[in-house]
């Protein structure tokens, strides 16, 4: 058995290291898919809309070329893990009271470029979630931070065009809520970019069906979800 000369051995070692580096670089350069994250918070019922994440994921896959993970994840609002996701969905029916850690995390997350979509699952103008969630947002971001979004906002043209602003939901006029169409969404803007999108139109109920049943709809009502995701990822 002949022993490999030291020079050839070092060349082989260098080649292996180079190949490893190339593979690591390729892995790093490969686009990481978008992961739909649902925020979990201590108060209230954060998991009230279990079908929304997959429905939006499906819509993103249907309409865009954005790489998207097939499953959503849940992430604690108080956890540093929150900062791994550029988009977070938060919903519920019940009164919301963010803990100190949750508040601080949410503020830092938004100020560092994160996007939070908060949807009132109650669709009431003065429902418990609406009153407490908006109060919490004002407490965290300042009294004047939460403002109505004009219907000409870029969000409504981010992918699909919604010239009349946010699409109305069937839950706004079903007699169970307040029977009023909420004309505007609210938002908190940081550095000229929307960081918090707040809705009490109850998209959580509107999109709360299995994505396979989307084929029965003449117009896909999750298209606005695509706009929200595209805005969050591209602005």
């Amino acid at each position, binding site marked *: 058995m002949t022993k490999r000369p030291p020079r050839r051995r070092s060349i082989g070692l260098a080649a292996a290291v180079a190949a490893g580096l190339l593979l690591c670089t390729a892995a790093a350069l490969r686009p990481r898919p978008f992961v739909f994250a*649902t925020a*979990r918070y201590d108060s209230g*019922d*954060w*998991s*009230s809309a*279990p*079908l929304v*994440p*997959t429905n939006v*994921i*499906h*819509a993103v*896959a*249907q*309409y865009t*070329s954005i790489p*998207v*993970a*097939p*499953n*959503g*994840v*849940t*992430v604690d609002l108080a956890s540093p893990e929150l900062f791994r996701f550029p988009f977070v969905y938060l919903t519920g*029916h*019940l009164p919301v009271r963010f803990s100190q850690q949750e508040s601080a995390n949410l503020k830092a997350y938004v100020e560092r470029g994160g996007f939070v979509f908060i949807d009132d699952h109650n669709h009431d103008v*003065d429902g*418990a979630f609406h009153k407490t969630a908006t109060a919490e947002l*004002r407490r965290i971001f*300042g*009294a*004047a931070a939460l*403002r109505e*979004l*004009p219907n*000409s*906002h*870029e*969000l409504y*043209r*981010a*992918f*699909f*065009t919604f010239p009349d602003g946010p699409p109305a939901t069937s839950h706004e006029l079903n*007699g169970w809520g*307040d*029977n*009023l169409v909420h004309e505007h969404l609210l*938002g908190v*803007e940081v550095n*000229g*970019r*929307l960081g918090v999108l707040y809705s009490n139109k109850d998209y959580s109920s509107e999109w709360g069906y*299995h*994505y396979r049943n989307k084929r029965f709809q003449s117009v*896909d009502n999750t*298209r606005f979800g695509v706009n929200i995701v595209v805005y969050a990822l*591209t*602005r």
Partner: protein
Amino acid sequence: MRTALRRLPAPSPPPLPTPVGRIVARVLEAWRISTLVRALAVAPALLAASAVLLVAADLLFPMRAVAREVLRWLPLVLGIGVVLYAGWRVAYPPELRRFVLLAEERIPELENRLITAFDVSVGDPDSLVARAFVADAERRLAGIEVHGVSPLRLGAPLLVLVTSWAVALAFALAFPTAAREAWGRWIHPRDAYEQRWREVRANTLPAVAETPMPAFDELRWRVSPPAYTGLGASEGRGEEPLQALAGSRVRLRSAFFDRWDAVRAIRIGGGELPVHRARGEWWVEWTQAPGERGIALEAMAHGDAAARRVVPVIVLPDRAPDVELTAPAQDLVLASASGRVAVRAMAADDYGVGDFDLAWSRTRGSGESFQYLEGRWPFASLRRGGNGASGERVLDLAAMQLEPGDVIHVRAVARDRNNVTGPAESVSRTRVIRIARPEEMDQVNTDVGFPLELPKDPLLSQRMLLIRTERLNADRARIPSAQLRARAAEIASDQERLRERVGEQIFTRATGAMQDPNVEGGFTEEGGAAHHDAAQPAGQLPAAGTREFSQQVLDAASAATGQGTIDEVTHRHDADPILSVDQQLLRLYNLMWAAERELNQAAPDAALPHQRQALLLIDELRKAERLYPSVNVRVDAVNVDSARGQGKVDEAGPASRAGGRALPTADALLAEIDRVAARSGTMAARAFSLQLSALAARALGGPGADAQAAALLSRAAGEAQAGRADVARALLLRARARIAPAASTRAHALPSTADPAAAEYYRRLGRMP
């Protein structure tokens, strides 16, 4: 025969002897020149001296404007008078003998020969003595030269003139503002009055109280609504809000103060309007545009804004007509296409109904043989009264050649007469008239005149009923009583249906058939949690899907609502009669009943309190009753690859992917309000007022725009101008509260202040800097 006596002309004096005539002529010429030159020197001296004296007198003892109006001409009159008098004297000099005497006085060499020769020549020139004396005088006077007869004597007038100018110049240099003011007061005495004079003295002389520039006096306006409304012009004044329909002609006027140079009027967010002046008033006129928010007024004095005022304009809405199809009262299914169906409708509008007719469509067949026709029918009889109209048309079904299966949709369409922003159109509910097919005769009850009662419209919520009642109450003053009764009866009908539903709830609860007991399951998503319930936190519930879990959920529901027991819910009491009556629901039922009763009596105002209480009660019940059981939902992962590209993106926006537009924020306006408040204690009243006016203009446009806040700021400006700074600050606080109802200290940094007034402002804000 009459004899006419004619006055003979006076005999001309004999010509003077040569040396006498020459001397007298030269004296006369010297006197004329002297008189004219002295007059030209005395006139400006007199003018300047009298002007300086008048200004000085006015400075020490301020005169009334009317006195200055008269006295300002005195210097000019004196100056011109002197010149004119001199001219008159030159043109008509005294008799020649006085010049002869003057020459004798000033020329000693004459030794009375000149006067003697003059007297002899005009007396008896032909006497022997006279001829001898004249001959001697001619010889002696021939060599005498005339000089120094009439000296100019310009020293005194020139001294007066120079002194006057020196005094005026010194005053102007020492007190330029006072000099400018004096110039204005005397050149334009109407524009000057005592207050302004005191203000100038306060600025230039110590120990004289300052008086402010006059602010805008009470505003008065006249609003002429557009012609289509048929309304007459209305007038308002003072602090009343200026309200106008779009298209109205608005004329705004007030007093014009003499100290102002001009008044400017600028549309908020628009251009400048021409301002007219006459008889001590200014006025501006414009046509109110739909989006216009108000007018900013500026009084200009000496090139600067002496006063500002913002006049917010509230544009009144012209609502679309209310249209109601009163007959047929419900949709019809008819057995045959014969007979007549009366279609009646009524419409009411704020300012009168314009076009009013019926829109119809007819559908026939299906599939490829589907036919669709549509058109408009005028009413056969149309009655107009007040601001309403009602019409009727009888449909002859036989003449319409309808076939079994045909469906007629008919609805009333009304437009108002608004020709300013375009007529607003409203439509009534659509009634459907369907001709039954033979094969469905056994399925539906059909008959001409006895139609099948189809399901009514969905129940209206209590909130919607309240809104409709409030609107009816607002309209009651201008709609006919018949229409009031009809609309009230319709709301009462809907209220009755909702009340009946509440009655069903009471019964259903008592019999325990309300809650579906098969609530079970839980939700798990990857990384997620399960079992979230309104009543109990996660982790304390038994395993989902178990009977125990369901019972706990229902127990929680019973505890939350205070109603029923688990036995009732699980139908273990079916044989029981009503077990209990929910007092809250019963109260709700009675409130609805009371509201319904008032509406049936066409008293919407009396119904409103009951409806409001009912709505509050519903909200309380709803909050107490809502239960959100979570379920375990196994969510399949999305097959991204198969879904990719399956969506239709036809409506995807080709719009640019530019960054989002910044949200409007009122922070800048709030910061400016705080800044002005912080300096309010150290600012002069006029400066404070001007800054408040500027804030009012900003509050009418841009982020945080609020017409009511602008009105408050405008009032604050008036109060500040009047020296009531405390009132102005209170109004400023109210305006700020309107713009930012719950502004926090973190909204923006507050300016620091040592001013106690500003500190009080912050204390009231609850935000000590």
